[in-house]
């Protein structure tokens, strides 16, 4: 695909990893690859925190009464869970880890456009995370991750303000990551890397970056207003003083609905790399998959009030937003079928990343289709704020986005660390997670339609059987997630060395050594061909 000469992986070659061992060579690095590793450590920490909160919640929900924790404690747990998982794990996950690491390499650049800003945004992320984590530890917050007013701005007597400060700071980290990605992709592409030669991973992250840049400032200002209202007691969102709580919801969801696409689009990108690689074949309908990312990014901004169908918005607004929500499902459908049809007449190899990718596909489709249930007005009036919604978004965020992230981590692990992951354990973990996941979250659809509201520390007894199933599934899921954490760490010391291109994949990142040198390429690559030119990469004889 390109004219870089093949560089054999010689021992002692300089890589970004052995370019310096002192702590400050990491903490003051401007190398996008090292910053990606820093991010990976950060989000893994926050994921485990969020996961522990989830585990405690599921334990509490194993019995109908609020016996393990007081309701106040339970409320703090799900708030902590939601905030940690959304703002500090999933939103930065793929863009800041895999995106940071791969985008410059995939487009043949030496670094991100603004390396210093890149490092700065990691610090913002860590500072924001530390502040929020501190607030959650010392006193906790009990508003839910949605911070609905006037509860959050007037009534809650927990550490809302500090938490908001942390999220506010983290928001700027997200904006700066997006900004860096946009500018890098626009201006730093290697000679010959035209837009329609870019891998779809870059396309999706570019679309994600647009959302990050255009939506995040609105949540920043919204949360700022809540904080101001808490401190000064002026009634911006407090009806007692003339404010409108529903205005808060509009402003919150103007960000938070597009934000769900910040969470899923990067996974779409990962899947669009993995599936062609393990089918060893061009992706089906490249342009359509590329454009559908943009369609999602744009239409995704038009649907936010579908979270407010029962909040007392006007009936006309409800109908408008329902209609627009259905539109956004179409580009996702294009992608789902493009991935499926890529397998057709391919040469499919079910290695670990591919197992994660197929798991993603199945679970995302269920999550997305149940999104259509809740977009249907009549149904949403019944299932809004019940476990049906909880199941919907976990299918997409855990079954979809997290599966995609893990698939990507396995796929590029050889490139990032220079070590192979253990294949058998990899497949086993993918399988465990898939099973545990379904057992955890499928019963929640049934619970939701039965009418069990979310954010309930206690519930009527007739719901217990399904809740116990769900809790049992959650423990399998926890094991499933602990596995990769353990064996991937293990490979760092004992893993097999990875060749330059272990999966016979196309893409510039496989044209440089594993792990890559600090400058990514020995020479400036010149691109002569579009992405996914798999017909030019021979498969080794079996």
């Amino acid at each position: 695909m390109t004219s870089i000469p093949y560089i054999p992986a010689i021992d002692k070659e300089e890589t970004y990893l052995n370019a310096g061992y002192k702590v400050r060579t990491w903490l003051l690095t401007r190398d996008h690859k090292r910053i990606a590793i820093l991010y990976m450590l950060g989000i893994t920490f926050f994921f485990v925190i969020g996961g522990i909160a989830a585990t405690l919640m599921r334990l509490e929900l194993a019995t109908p009464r609020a016996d393990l924790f007081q309701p106040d404690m339970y409320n703090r747990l799900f708030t902590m869970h939601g905030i940690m998982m959304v703002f500090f794990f999933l939103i930065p996950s793929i863009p800041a880890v895999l995106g940071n690491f791969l985008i410059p390499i995939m487009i043949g650049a030496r670094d991100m456009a603004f390396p210093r800003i890149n490092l700065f945004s990691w610090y913002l992320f860590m500072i924001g995370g530390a502040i929020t984590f501190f607030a959650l530890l010392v006193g906790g917050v009990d508003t839910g991750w949605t911070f609905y007013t006037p509860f959050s701005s007037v009534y809650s007597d927990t550490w809302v303000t500090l938490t908001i400060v942390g999220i506010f700071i983290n928001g700027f980290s997200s904006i700066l990551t997006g900004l860096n990605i946009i500018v890098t992709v626009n201006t730093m592409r290697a000679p010959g890397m035209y837009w329609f030669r870019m891998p779809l991973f870059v396309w999706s992250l570019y679309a994600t970056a647009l959302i990050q840049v255009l939506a995040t400032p609105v949540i920043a200002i919204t949360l700022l207003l809540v904080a101001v209202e808490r401190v000064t007691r002026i009634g911006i969102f407090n009806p007692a003083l003339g404010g409108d709580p529903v205005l808060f919801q509009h402003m919150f969801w103007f960000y938070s609905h597009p934000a769900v696409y910040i969470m899923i689009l990067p996974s779409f990108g990962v899947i669009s790399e993995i599936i062609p690689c393990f089918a060893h074949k061009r992706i089906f309908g490249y342009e359509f998959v590329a454009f559908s990312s943009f369609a999602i990014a744009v239409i995704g901004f038009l649907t936010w009030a579908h979270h407010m169908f029962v909040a007392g918005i006007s009936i006309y607004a409800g109908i408008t937003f329902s209609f627009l929500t259905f539109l956004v499902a179409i580009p996702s459908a294009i992608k789902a079928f493009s991935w499926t049809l890529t397998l057709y007449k391919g040469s499919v190899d079910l290695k670990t990343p591919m197992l994660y990718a197929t798991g993603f596909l199945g679970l995302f489709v269920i999550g997305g289709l149940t999104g259509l249930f809740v977009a249907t007005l009549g149904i949403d009036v019944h299932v809004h704020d019940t476990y049906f919604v909880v199941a919907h978004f976990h299918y997409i965020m855990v079954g979809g986005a997290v599966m995609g992230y893990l698939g990507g981590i396995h796929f590029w692990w050889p490139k990032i660390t220079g070590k192979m992951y253990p294949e058998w354990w990899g497949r086993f973990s993918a399988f465990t997670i898939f099973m545990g996941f379904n057992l955890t979250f499928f019963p929640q659809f049934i619970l939701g339609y039965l009418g069990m509201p979310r954010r309930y520390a206690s519930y009527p007894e007739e719901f217990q059987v399904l809740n116990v199933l769900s809790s049992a599934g959650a423990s399998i899921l926890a094991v499933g997630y602990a596995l990769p954490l353990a064996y991937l760490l293990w490979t760092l010391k004992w893993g097999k060395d990875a060749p330059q291109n272990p999966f016979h994949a196309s893409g510039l990142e496989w044209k440089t050594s594993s792990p890559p040198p600090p400058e990514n390429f020995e020479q400036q690559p010149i691109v002569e061909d579009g992405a996914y030119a798999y017909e030019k990469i021979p498969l080794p004889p079996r």
Partner: protein
Amino acid sequence: MNPYTAHLQHHFRDLEQQREASTLGMWTFLATEVLFFGGLFLGYSVYRVGYPDAWTEGSHHLKEWAGAINTGVLLCSSLTMALAVRCAALRMTRQTTWFLLGTIALGFVFLGIKAIEYTLEWREGLVPHFKFDMNRYAANPALGNRVQLFMSFYFIMTALHATHMIVGIGLVSWVAYHAWKGRYTDNPTWVEMTGLYWHFVDIVWIFLFPLLYLIR
């Protein structure tokens, strides 16, 4: 070192690419700023449509003269900033520095007038929560609450704008220092970027002025 590459960071191919990246980065940043202020403008508009009486009432308490003068001051500062950028592009070091200093001075004038305004408003008891004279609205506390709402928006919007001004003055000072040292003779990008930011802050004020001060 070749003077042409002195300012080229290692990961860019050439200065043109670097300049393109900075420009695009700045415009992207300004786009986020538009939406940052946009959230406030939305809140402002919803309540303005909802409570026209309170909004008119609140607006009458503001010092129109101060707002108007400040608009003029900012427009002047935009002119000096634009001229500074022009001089930098023409490599006129001395003039660049002077125009930048002029911009800083005008920035301070703006902040000074704003401070006077805030002081007057404090004296008149127009600051929500801290010093708001509800007696004025004893007959109609509901209206009083809504005027407070207006004043809250006024203070939050202008304070946020002033914060941007302060950051801007800091940036311009930094750039002026380097311009004076002759660091931009080969690459005026920094002056241009600071200029973009400064003009943007000006634009925000161009909207704030009629929206806050001129409601009839």
